[in-house]
Protein backbone atom coordinates (compact mmCIF):
# COMPACT_ATOMS: atom_id res chain seq x y z
CA UNK A 1 0.00 0.00 0.00
CA UNK A 2 1.23 3.48 -0.85
CA UNK A 3 0.04 6.44 1.22
CA UNK A 4 0.50 9.94 -0.09
CA UNK A 5 0.00 12.75 2.38
CA UNK A 6 -0.32 16.37 1.26
CA UNK A 7 2.56 16.50 -1.21
CA UNK A 8 3.65 19.71 -2.85
CA UNK A 9 6.18 20.11 -5.63
CA UNK A 10 7.41 23.27 -7.36
CA UNK A 11 9.94 23.95 -10.09
CA UNK A 12 11.08 27.55 -9.76
CA UNK A 13 7.92 29.66 -9.69
CA UNK A 14 5.73 26.90 -11.09
CA UNK A 15 3.75 25.19 -8.31
CA UNK A 16 2.99 21.83 -9.95
CA UNK A 17 1.55 19.70 -7.13
CA UNK A 18 -0.55 21.59 -4.58
CA UNK A 19 -1.18 19.25 -1.71
CA UNK A 20 -2.23 15.83 -3.02
CA UNK A 21 -3.23 13.07 -0.61
CA UNK A 22 -4.39 9.58 -1.48
CA UNK A 23 -4.03 5.89 -0.66
CA UNK A 24 -3.17 3.28 -3.28
CA UNK A 25 -4.19 -0.15 -2.09
CA UNK A 26 -2.46 -3.46 -2.60
CA UNK A 27 -3.83 -5.76 -5.30
CA UNK A 28 -5.71 -2.92 -6.97
CA UNK A 29 -5.16 -1.09 -10.23
CA UNK A 30 -4.95 2.59 -9.33
CA UNK A 31 -5.22 5.13 -12.12
CA UNK A 32 -4.09 8.74 -12.21
CA UNK A 33 -5.90 10.71 -14.88
CA UNK A 34 -5.95 14.34 -15.93
CA UNK A 35 -5.24 16.66 -18.80
CA UNK A 36 -1.72 17.28 -20.06
CA UNK A 37 -0.01 19.66 -17.63
CA UNK A 38 -2.18 18.62 -14.70
CA UNK A 39 0.82 17.24 -12.81
CA UNK A 40 0.36 13.50 -13.48
CA UNK A 41 3.94 12.81 -14.54
CA UNK A 42 5.44 14.88 -11.70
CA UNK A 43 3.17 13.02 -9.26
CA UNK A 44 4.28 9.65 -10.65
CA UNK A 45 7.95 10.67 -10.51
CA UNK A 46 7.45 11.67 -6.86
CA UNK A 47 5.99 8.22 -6.18
CA UNK A 48 9.00 6.66 -7.89
CA UNK A 49 11.43 8.70 -5.83
CA UNK A 50 12.83 10.46 -8.91
CA UNK A 51 11.56 13.80 -7.57
CA UNK A 52 11.60 14.76 -3.90
CA UNK A 53 8.39 16.50 -2.77
CA UNK A 54 8.91 19.97 -1.24
CA UNK A 55 6.31 19.17 1.43
CA UNK A 56 4.33 16.13 2.52
CA UNK A 57 5.22 12.46 2.77
CA UNK A 58 4.97 9.30 0.70
CA UNK A 59 5.05 6.00 2.56
CA UNK A 60 5.36 2.48 1.18
CA UNK A 61 3.76 -0.09 3.48
CA UNK A 62 4.32 2.26 6.40
CA UNK A 63 7.92 3.24 5.50
CA UNK A 64 8.23 6.97 4.85
CA UNK A 65 10.52 7.31 1.82
CA UNK A 66 12.11 10.62 2.87
CA UNK A 67 13.13 9.17 6.24
CA UNK A 68 14.94 6.18 4.74
CA UNK A 69 18.74 6.19 4.34
CA UNK A 70 20.06 6.31 0.75
CA UNK A 71 20.80 2.56 0.82
CA UNK A 72 17.31 1.81 2.20
CA UNK A 73 15.85 3.99 -0.55
CA UNK A 74 17.80 2.00 -3.16
CA UNK A 75 16.60 -1.27 -1.63
CA UNK A 76 13.04 0.02 -1.73
CA UNK A 77 13.47 0.96 -5.37
CA UNK A 78 14.41 -2.63 -6.11
CA UNK A 79 10.89 -3.51 -4.95
CA UNK A 80 9.46 -1.21 -7.62
CA UNK A 81 8.78 -2.07 -11.23
CA UNK A 82 8.25 0.61 -13.84
CA UNK A 83 6.77 0.49 -17.32
CA UNK A 84 7.72 3.64 -19.21
CA UNK A 85 5.65 5.36 -21.87
CA UNK A 86 8.29 4.56 -24.51
CA UNK A 87 9.13 1.18 -22.88
CA UNK A 88 12.73 2.36 -22.14
CA UNK A 89 14.23 -0.96 -23.14
CA UNK A 90 18.02 -1.09 -23.41
CA UNK A 91 18.77 -0.89 -27.13
CA UNK A 92 22.03 -2.78 -26.87
CA UNK A 93 20.44 -5.82 -25.23
CA UNK A 94 18.12 -8.51 -26.57
CA UNK A 95 14.65 -9.06 -25.13
CA UNK A 96 16.11 -11.77 -22.91
CA UNK A 97 18.98 -9.48 -21.86
CA UNK A 98 16.58 -6.71 -20.94
CA UNK A 99 14.44 -8.96 -18.76
CA UNK A 100 17.46 -10.67 -17.21
CA UNK A 101 19.17 -7.34 -16.42
CA UNK A 102 17.67 -6.75 -12.92
CA UNK A 103 18.32 -10.39 -11.96
CA UNK A 104 21.96 -10.12 -13.04
CA UNK A 105 22.40 -6.85 -11.17
CA UNK A 106 20.71 -7.63 -7.88
CA UNK A 107 20.53 -11.37 -7.32
CA UNK A 108 23.05 -14.15 -6.89
CA UNK A 109 21.04 -16.56 -9.03
CA UNK A 110 22.86 -18.94 -11.34
CA UNK A 111 22.59 -18.50 -15.10
CA UNK A 112 20.09 -21.38 -15.38
CA UNK A 113 17.93 -20.00 -12.53
CA UNK A 114 17.85 -16.61 -14.20
CA UNK A 115 17.04 -18.22 -17.54
CA UNK A 116 14.11 -20.11 -15.98
CA UNK A 117 12.74 -16.94 -14.41
CA UNK A 118 13.09 -15.01 -17.68
CA UNK A 119 11.35 -17.79 -19.62
CA UNK A 120 8.55 -17.79 -17.04
CA UNK A 121 7.87 -14.04 -17.12
CA UNK A 122 8.14 -13.82 -20.91
CA UNK A 123 5.61 -16.65 -21.16
CA UNK A 124 3.43 -14.80 -18.65
CA UNK A 125 3.31 -11.75 -20.92
CA UNK A 126 2.68 -14.01 -23.94
CA UNK A 127 6.07 -13.53 -25.56
CA UNK A 128 7.66 -16.84 -26.33
CA UNK A 129 9.54 -16.41 -29.60
CA UNK A 130 11.29 -13.09 -29.09
CA UNK A 131 14.08 -13.99 -26.64
CA UNK A 132 16.94 -13.20 -29.01
CA UNK A 133 15.43 -10.23 -30.80
CA UNK A 134 16.53 -6.66 -30.16
CA UNK A 135 13.98 -3.97 -29.15
CA UNK A 136 14.27 -2.38 -32.60
CA UNK A 137 13.18 -5.67 -34.20
CA UNK A 138 9.85 -6.01 -32.37
CA UNK A 139 6.55 -4.10 -32.48
CA UNK A 140 5.45 -1.41 -30.00
CA UNK A 141 3.01 -3.80 -28.33
CA UNK A 142 5.74 -6.43 -27.93
CA UNK A 143 8.09 -3.79 -26.50
CA UNK A 144 5.46 -2.94 -23.88
CA UNK A 145 5.17 -6.62 -22.97
CA UNK A 146 8.94 -6.86 -22.60
CA UNK A 147 8.85 -3.74 -20.40
CA UNK A 148 6.14 -5.37 -18.24
CA UNK A 149 8.17 -8.59 -18.06
CA UNK A 150 11.25 -6.61 -16.98
CA UNK A 151 9.17 -4.74 -14.41
CA UNK A 152 7.79 -7.91 -12.78
CA UNK A 153 10.84 -10.18 -13.06
CA UNK A 154 12.03 -9.23 -9.54
CA UNK A 155 8.56 -9.83 -8.04
CA UNK A 156 7.99 -6.16 -7.22
CA UNK A 157 5.63 -4.96 -4.49
CA UNK A 158 4.83 -1.81 -6.45
CA UNK A 159 4.26 -1.47 -10.18
CA UNK A 160 4.16 1.94 -11.87
CA UNK A 161 3.13 2.49 -15.47
CA UNK A 162 3.38 5.75 -17.38
CA UNK A 163 0.79 5.73 -20.17
CA UNK A 164 1.39 2.04 -20.89
CA UNK A 165 -0.87 1.89 -23.93
CA UNK A 166 -0.03 5.16 -25.65
CA UNK A 167 0.83 4.71 -29.31
CA UNK A 168 -0.77 1.27 -29.46
CA UNK A 169 -3.76 0.17 -31.53
CA UNK A 170 -6.99 -0.20 -29.50
CA UNK A 171 -6.89 -4.00 -29.44
CA UNK A 172 -3.28 -4.18 -28.25
CA UNK A 173 -3.98 -1.37 -25.76
CA UNK A 174 -6.77 -3.43 -24.16
CA UNK A 175 -4.52 -6.50 -24.08
CA UNK A 176 -1.82 -4.53 -22.27
CA UNK A 177 -4.37 -3.06 -19.82
CA UNK A 178 -5.78 -6.49 -19.05
CA UNK A 179 -2.30 -7.96 -18.67
CA UNK A 180 -1.35 -5.30 -16.09
CA UNK A 181 -4.66 -5.81 -14.28
CA UNK A 182 -4.23 -9.61 -14.17
CA UNK A 183 -0.64 -9.34 -12.95
CA UNK A 184 -1.70 -6.86 -10.24
CA UNK A 185 -4.27 -9.30 -8.87
CA UNK A 186 -2.19 -12.42 -9.40
CA UNK A 187 0.88 -11.12 -7.54
CA UNK A 188 -1.00 -8.79 -5.16
CA UNK A 189 0.98 -5.76 -6.31
CA UNK A 190 0.18 -2.09 -5.66
CA UNK A 191 -0.16 -0.79 -9.19
CA UNK A 192 -0.31 2.90 -10.13
CA UNK A 193 -0.96 3.80 -13.76
CA UNK A 194 -0.67 7.25 -15.24
CA UNK A 195 -3.02 7.46 -18.21
CA UNK A 196 -5.41 9.58 -20.22
CA UNK A 197 -6.84 6.61 -22.06
CA UNK A 198 -10.55 6.41 -21.30
CA UNK A 199 -10.76 2.74 -22.25
CA UNK A 200 -8.28 2.00 -19.45
CA UNK A 201 -10.35 4.09 -17.05
CA UNK A 202 -13.50 2.13 -17.84
CA UNK A 203 -11.87 -1.30 -18.06
CA UNK A 204 -9.38 -1.50 -15.18
CA UNK A 205 -9.82 1.62 -13.03
CA UNK A 206 -10.49 0.10 -9.63
CA UNK A 207 -9.41 3.36 -8.10
CA UNK A 208 -9.09 6.57 -10.06
CA UNK A 209 -7.78 9.93 -9.00
CA UNK A 210 -8.37 12.90 -11.27
CA UNK A 211 -5.82 15.71 -11.14
CA UNK A 212 -6.49 19.23 -12.30
CA UNK A 213 -3.97 22.07 -12.06
CA UNK A 214 -1.95 20.15 -9.49
CA UNK A 215 -4.92 19.42 -7.21
CA UNK A 216 -6.83 16.21 -6.63
CA UNK A 217 -10.19 17.14 -8.11
CA UNK A 218 -11.93 13.80 -7.74
CA UNK A 219 -11.38 10.26 -6.48
CA UNK A 220 -13.44 7.12 -7.04
CA UNK A 221 -13.76 3.91 -9.05
CA UNK A 222 -14.66 3.20 -12.69
CA UNK A 223 -18.24 2.51 -11.56
CA UNK A 224 -18.48 5.79 -9.67
CA UNK A 225 -17.07 7.81 -12.50
CA UNK A 226 -20.27 7.11 -14.48
CA UNK A 227 -22.36 8.69 -11.77
CA UNK A 228 -20.22 11.61 -10.77
CA UNK A 229 -21.62 15.09 -11.17
CA UNK A 230 -18.18 16.70 -10.88
CA UNK A 231 -18.09 18.95 -13.90
CA UNK A 232 -14.31 18.87 -14.36
CA UNK A 233 -14.33 15.06 -14.42
CA UNK A 234 -17.29 14.76 -16.78
CA UNK A 235 -15.82 17.39 -19.09
CA UNK A 236 -12.56 15.44 -19.26
CA UNK A 237 -13.79 11.84 -19.27
CA UNK A 238 -16.87 12.35 -21.43
CA UNK A 239 -15.34 14.79 -23.86
CA UNK A 240 -16.28 12.60 -26.87
CA UNK A 241 -19.86 12.13 -28.09
CA UNK A 242 -19.46 8.36 -27.87
CA UNK A 243 -18.59 8.42 -24.17
CA UNK A 244 -21.41 10.91 -23.50
CA UNK A 245 -23.87 8.44 -25.05
CA UNK A 246 -22.38 5.51 -23.15
CA UNK A 247 -22.73 7.43 -19.89
CA UNK A 248 -26.32 8.41 -20.72
CA UNK A 249 -27.22 4.80 -21.48
CA UNK A 250 -25.56 3.64 -18.25
CA UNK A 251 -27.50 6.17 -16.17
CA UNK A 252 -30.79 5.31 -17.90
CA UNK A 253 -30.12 1.60 -17.37
CA UNK A 254 -29.44 2.16 -13.67
CA UNK A 255 -32.63 4.22 -13.27
Amino acid at each position, binding site marked *: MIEVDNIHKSFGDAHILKGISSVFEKGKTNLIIGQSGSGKTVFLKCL*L*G*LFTPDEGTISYDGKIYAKLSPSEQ*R*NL*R*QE*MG*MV*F*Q*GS*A*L*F*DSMTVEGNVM*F*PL*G*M*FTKQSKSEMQDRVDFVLKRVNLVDAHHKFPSEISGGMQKRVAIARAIVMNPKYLFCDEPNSGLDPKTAILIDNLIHEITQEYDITTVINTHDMNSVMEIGEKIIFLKNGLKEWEGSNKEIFKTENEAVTDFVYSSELFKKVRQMYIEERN
Partner: protein
Amino acid sequence: MNYLASIGSYFIMIIEVFKKPTKWSVMRTLILKEIDELVYGSMGIIIFISFFIGGVVAIQTALNITNPLIPRNLIGFATRQSVILEFAPTFTSIIMAGKVGSYITSSIGTMRVTEQIDALEIMGVNSLNYLVFPKIIAMLFYPFVIAIAMYVGIFGGWTAGVFGGFSSSADFVEGLQLDFIPFHVTYSFVKSIVFALLIATIPSFHGYYMKGGALEVGKASTTSFVWTSVVIIIVNYILTQLLLG
Protein backbone atom coordinates in the same frame (compact mmCIF):
# COMPACT_ATOMS: atom_id res chain seq x y z
CA MET B 1 27.47 31.95 -13.85
CA ASN B 2 26.12 29.12 -15.99
CA TYR B 3 29.66 28.02 -16.79
CA LEU B 4 30.52 27.92 -13.08
CA ALA B 5 27.40 25.87 -12.35
CA SER B 6 28.32 23.45 -15.15
CA ILE B 7 31.88 23.08 -13.87
CA GLY B 8 30.47 22.38 -10.39
CA SER B 9 28.01 19.82 -11.78
CA TYR B 10 30.85 18.17 -13.72
CA PHE B 11 32.90 17.61 -10.56
CA ILE B 12 29.83 16.39 -8.63
CA MET B 13 29.26 13.92 -11.48
CA ILE B 14 32.85 12.67 -11.17
CA ILE B 15 32.30 12.00 -7.44
CA GLU B 16 28.99 10.21 -8.14
CA VAL B 17 30.67 7.97 -10.72
CA PHE B 18 32.72 6.33 -7.98
CA LYS B 19 29.81 5.81 -5.55
CA LYS B 20 27.79 2.60 -5.19
CA PRO B 21 29.77 0.46 -7.62
CA THR B 22 28.03 -1.92 -9.99
CA LYS B 23 28.44 -5.67 -9.39
CA TRP B 24 31.91 -6.70 -10.62
CA SER B 25 30.68 -9.51 -12.92
CA VAL B 26 28.52 -6.96 -14.77
CA MET B 27 31.16 -4.22 -14.68
CA ARG B 28 33.86 -6.51 -16.11
CA THR B 29 31.74 -7.14 -19.20
CA LEU B 30 31.00 -3.44 -19.57
CA ILE B 31 34.70 -2.51 -19.32
CA LEU B 32 35.72 -5.07 -21.95
CA LYS B 33 32.95 -3.83 -24.24
CA GLU B 34 34.09 -0.22 -23.84
CA ILE B 35 37.76 -1.14 -24.45
CA ASP B 36 36.65 -2.76 -27.70
CA GLU B 37 34.42 0.17 -28.64
CA LEU B 38 36.51 3.15 -27.53
CA VAL B 39 40.13 1.98 -27.75
CA TYR B 40 40.39 -0.93 -30.17
CA GLY B 41 37.70 0.57 -32.42
CA SER B 42 39.75 3.76 -32.80
CA MET B 43 43.00 2.10 -33.83
CA GLY B 44 42.31 2.24 -37.56
CA ILE B 45 41.75 5.99 -37.78
CA ILE B 46 44.62 6.73 -35.36
CA ILE B 47 47.10 4.64 -37.39
CA PHE B 48 45.92 6.22 -40.65
CA ILE B 49 46.17 9.81 -39.37
CA SER B 50 49.47 9.29 -37.51
CA PHE B 51 51.18 7.81 -40.57
CA PHE B 52 50.30 10.73 -42.81
CA ILE B 53 50.91 13.41 -40.16
CA GLY B 54 54.39 11.97 -39.58
CA GLY B 55 54.96 12.00 -43.35
CA VAL B 56 53.82 15.60 -43.72
CA VAL B 57 56.04 16.77 -40.84
CA ALA B 58 59.07 15.11 -42.46
CA ILE B 59 58.35 16.61 -45.90
CA GLN B 60 57.73 20.12 -44.55
CA THR B 61 60.90 20.02 -42.47
CA ALA B 62 62.87 18.84 -45.50
CA LEU B 63 61.44 21.54 -47.74
CA ASN B 64 62.36 24.23 -45.21
CA ILE B 65 66.01 23.19 -44.96
CA THR B 66 67.51 25.47 -47.59
CA ASN B 67 70.81 26.14 -45.85
CA PRO B 68 73.39 23.45 -46.87
CA LEU B 69 75.05 23.83 -43.45
CA ILE B 70 72.02 22.36 -41.69
CA PRO B 71 72.45 18.57 -41.47
CA ARG B 72 69.86 16.32 -43.16
CA ASN B 73 69.41 14.38 -39.92
CA LEU B 74 67.29 17.34 -38.76
CA ILE B 75 64.38 15.76 -40.68
CA GLY B 76 64.39 12.71 -38.39
CA PHE B 77 65.03 14.88 -35.33
CA ALA B 78 62.13 17.27 -36.10
CA THR B 79 59.77 14.42 -36.93
CA ARG B 80 60.55 12.65 -33.65
CA GLN B 81 60.17 15.78 -31.55
CA SER B 82 56.92 16.90 -33.25
CA VAL B 83 55.31 13.48 -33.16
CA ILE B 84 56.29 12.54 -29.60
CA LEU B 85 55.72 15.93 -28.00
CA GLU B 86 52.57 17.14 -29.74
CA PHE B 87 51.13 15.27 -32.70
CA ALA B 88 50.73 11.88 -31.04
CA PRO B 89 49.27 12.97 -27.69
CA THR B 90 47.47 16.23 -28.51
CA PHE B 91 46.44 16.00 -32.16
CA THR B 92 45.30 12.39 -31.69
CA SER B 93 43.30 13.44 -28.62
CA ILE B 94 41.46 16.11 -30.61
CA ILE B 95 40.58 13.44 -33.18
CA MET B 96 39.46 11.13 -30.37
CA ALA B 97 37.35 13.94 -28.85
CA GLY B 98 35.48 13.97 -32.15
CA LYS B 99 35.23 10.25 -32.72
CA VAL B 100 34.92 8.76 -29.24
CA GLY B 101 33.48 11.88 -27.57
CA SER B 102 30.60 12.17 -30.03
CA TYR B 103 29.88 8.47 -29.63
CA ILE B 104 29.82 8.76 -25.82
CA THR B 105 27.59 11.86 -25.80
CA SER B 106 25.14 10.52 -28.35
CA SER B 107 24.87 7.06 -26.80
CA ILE B 108 24.32 8.39 -23.25
CA GLY B 109 22.14 11.25 -24.56
CA THR B 110 19.92 8.80 -26.43
CA MET B 111 19.58 6.74 -23.27
CA ARG B 112 18.51 9.92 -21.45
CA VAL B 113 15.96 10.86 -24.12
CA THR B 114 14.45 7.36 -24.25
CA GLU B 115 14.22 7.16 -20.43
CA GLN B 116 16.70 4.27 -20.24
CA ILE B 117 18.69 6.20 -17.60
CA ASP B 118 15.49 6.72 -15.56
CA ALA B 119 14.87 2.97 -15.87
CA LEU B 120 18.34 2.26 -14.41
CA GLU B 121 17.77 4.71 -11.54
CA ILE B 122 14.37 3.25 -10.67
CA MET B 123 15.89 -0.23 -10.56
CA GLY B 124 18.30 1.11 -7.94
CA VAL B 125 21.36 1.17 -10.24
CA ASN B 126 23.83 4.08 -9.90
CA SER B 127 23.49 5.02 -13.56
CA LEU B 128 26.60 7.24 -13.53
CA ASN B 129 28.73 4.39 -12.26
CA TYR B 130 27.14 1.95 -14.70
CA LEU B 131 27.57 4.23 -17.73
CA VAL B 132 30.65 6.37 -17.09
CA PHE B 133 32.98 4.26 -14.92
CA PRO B 134 33.62 1.60 -17.61
CA LYS B 135 34.46 4.36 -20.09
CA ILE B 136 37.00 5.89 -17.69
CA ILE B 137 38.65 2.52 -17.10
CA ALA B 138 38.66 1.71 -20.83
CA MET B 139 40.28 5.05 -21.63
CA LEU B 140 43.13 4.26 -19.23
CA PHE B 141 44.38 2.09 -22.10
CA TYR B 142 44.60 5.23 -24.22
CA PRO B 143 48.41 5.66 -23.70
CA PHE B 144 48.84 2.39 -25.64
CA VAL B 145 47.05 4.05 -28.54
CA ILE B 146 49.36 7.04 -28.19
CA ALA B 147 52.42 4.76 -28.16
CA ILE B 148 51.25 3.19 -31.41
CA ALA B 149 50.56 6.67 -32.83
CA MET B 150 54.16 7.65 -31.99
CA TYR B 151 55.66 4.63 -33.73
CA VAL B 152 53.43 4.91 -36.77
CA GLY B 153 53.95 8.68 -37.01
CA ILE B 154 57.74 8.30 -36.98
CA PHE B 155 57.47 5.43 -39.45
CA GLY B 156 55.36 7.69 -41.68
CA GLY B 157 58.06 10.37 -41.44
CA TRP B 158 60.78 7.85 -42.34
CA THR B 159 58.73 6.55 -45.30
CA ALA B 160 58.09 10.06 -46.65
CA GLY B 161 61.66 11.20 -45.97
CA VAL B 162 63.42 8.20 -47.49
CA PHE B 163 61.08 7.29 -50.37
CA GLY B 164 60.46 10.96 -51.18
CA GLY B 165 64.18 11.43 -51.65
CA PHE B 166 64.51 14.05 -48.89
CA SER B 167 66.81 12.08 -46.62
CA SER B 168 68.76 8.86 -46.46
CA SER B 169 67.57 6.20 -44.04
CA ALA B 170 70.82 6.51 -42.06
CA ASP B 171 70.46 10.31 -41.72
CA PHE B 172 66.83 9.95 -40.61
CA VAL B 173 67.65 7.29 -38.00
CA GLU B 174 70.60 9.36 -36.76
CA GLY B 175 68.23 12.30 -36.34
CA LEU B 176 65.80 10.11 -34.43
CA GLN B 177 68.51 9.23 -31.91
CA LEU B 178 69.99 12.74 -31.67
CA ASP B 179 69.66 14.39 -28.22
CA PHE B 180 66.90 12.03 -27.21
CA ILE B 181 65.40 12.92 -23.82
CA PRO B 182 63.41 9.97 -22.40
CA PHE B 183 61.39 12.34 -20.18
CA HIS B 184 59.68 13.67 -23.30
CA VAL B 185 57.99 10.28 -23.70
CA THR B 186 56.96 10.32 -20.03
CA TYR B 187 55.59 13.84 -20.52
CA SER B 188 53.63 12.64 -23.52
CA PHE B 189 52.13 9.69 -21.63
CA VAL B 190 51.23 11.87 -18.64
CA LYS B 191 49.39 14.19 -21.03
CA SER B 192 47.64 11.29 -22.74
CA ILE B 193 46.35 9.89 -19.42
CA VAL B 194 44.90 13.30 -18.50
CA PHE B 195 43.40 13.72 -21.97
CA ALA B 196 41.92 10.21 -21.74
CA LEU B 197 40.08 11.16 -18.55
CA LEU B 198 38.80 14.33 -20.21
CA ILE B 199 37.66 12.43 -23.33
CA ALA B 200 35.78 9.92 -21.17
CA THR B 201 34.15 12.36 -18.76
CA ILE B 202 33.32 15.63 -20.59
CA PRO B 203 31.23 13.93 -23.32
CA SER B 204 29.59 11.75 -20.64
CA PHE B 205 28.63 14.91 -18.74
CA HIS B 206 27.07 16.47 -21.85
CA GLY B 207 25.15 13.29 -22.67
CA TYR B 208 24.01 12.52 -19.14
CA TYR B 209 22.64 15.96 -18.30
CA MET B 210 21.13 16.80 -21.68
CA LYS B 211 17.45 17.68 -21.97
CA GLY B 212 15.16 17.45 -24.97
CA GLY B 213 14.88 15.12 -27.94
CA ALA B 214 16.81 13.79 -30.90
CA LEU B 215 17.82 17.26 -32.13
CA GLU B 216 19.30 18.09 -28.73
CA VAL B 217 21.32 14.84 -28.79
CA GLY B 218 23.00 16.14 -31.96
CA LYS B 219 23.57 19.56 -30.42
CA ALA B 220 24.98 17.98 -27.24
CA SER B 221 27.45 15.94 -29.34
CA THR B 222 28.70 19.07 -31.07
CA THR B 223 28.93 21.01 -27.81
CA SER B 224 30.78 18.17 -26.12
CA PHE B 225 33.33 18.01 -28.97
CA VAL B 226 33.93 21.76 -28.75
CA TRP B 227 34.35 21.76 -24.97
CA THR B 228 36.49 18.63 -24.87
CA SER B 229 38.80 20.17 -27.50
CA VAL B 230 38.96 23.50 -25.65
CA VAL B 231 39.76 21.82 -22.33
CA ILE B 232 42.39 19.58 -23.97
CA ILE B 233 44.11 22.62 -25.47
CA ILE B 234 44.08 24.50 -22.15
CA VAL B 235 45.24 21.49 -20.13
CA ASN B 236 47.94 20.84 -22.74
CA TYR B 237 49.29 24.34 -22.16
CA ILE B 238 49.20 23.98 -18.37
CA LEU B 239 50.86 20.54 -18.37
CA THR B 240 53.55 21.69 -20.79
CA GLN B 241 54.31 24.66 -18.56
CA LEU B 242 54.39 22.45 -15.46
CA LEU B 243 56.38 19.54 -16.87
CA LEU B 244 58.70 21.17 -19.38
CA GLY B 245 58.69 24.83 -18.37
